[in-house]
């Protein structure tokens, strides 16, 4: 074995911030079992907390969950975009994706617009699937490679 073996680049750091702390823990565990990234659970979805933790951990991607329940105002698309903007200010290369619950077609226009305006890098509707996460991880890895070259 050569001492000068080329090292593999470290796996991307994936910060997960879901609407509730227990779902954040569950999602982080799920990501760790899936492999391909180093998950970080952001238990508070307060804007300052998310920004601080992502910056401290130098996250490569951030998964933010929305909550469209009636009466919940601080977990909608625009509030999550607000967090995305602040995270990008600290980490311009961090990729940000929204995980949204299904059954709210009225939110689609805002989600499309947020992706079009590059406030977020993408979104998914319904439960997070393995395939979707792998696509996002691939995008992140590709982006990191481009930055290095």
């Amino acid at each position, binding site marked *: 074995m050569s001492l000068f073996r080329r090292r593999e680049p470290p796996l991307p750091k994936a910060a997960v911030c879901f609407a509730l702390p227990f779902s954040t823990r569950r999602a982080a565990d799920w990501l760790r079992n899936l492999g391909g990234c180093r998950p970080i659970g952001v238990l508070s979805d307060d804007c300052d907390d998310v920004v601080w933790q992502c910056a401290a951990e130098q996250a490569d991607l951030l998964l933010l969950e929305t909550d469209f329940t009636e009466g919940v105002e601080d977990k*909608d*698309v*625009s509030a999550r*975009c*607000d967090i995305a*903007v602040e995270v*990008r*200010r600290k980490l311009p290369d961090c990729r940000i994706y929204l995980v949204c619950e299904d059954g709210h077609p009225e*939110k689609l*226009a*805002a989600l499309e*617009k*947020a992706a079009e*305006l*590059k*406030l977020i890098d993408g979104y998914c509707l319904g439960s997070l699937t393995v395939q979707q996460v792998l696509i996002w991880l691939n995008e992140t890895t590709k982006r990191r490679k481009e930055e290095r070259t």
Partner: protein
Amino acid sequence: MTDYDLRTRKALRQVTLLEYGCGPETLRRRKICPNCGKANSADRTDCADCGARLPEMTLYDLYRSRHRCCPGCGVAVTDVARYCPECGARLPKGAARQEAAV
């Protein structure tokens, strides 16, 4: 305020308007179904809910037909305004409110 702040603030405003509000950007992309009242996307010809034929007029056209608007930026202005409070453009004298023919 930096260029980044201005750009993102404008982008966020557009997202918020699409989610909740009725600014010109949102109104231009919406048509109201005359049958059930549902707001549809402006590129649709039939209502997504009841299938009724949608009018050509977007919500923005309807809004403009009922208010005196600045020809430059499109915001609604009062009947006595001489300059647009939003963009500062001089408003035409005779462009008082036109009643909608709806």
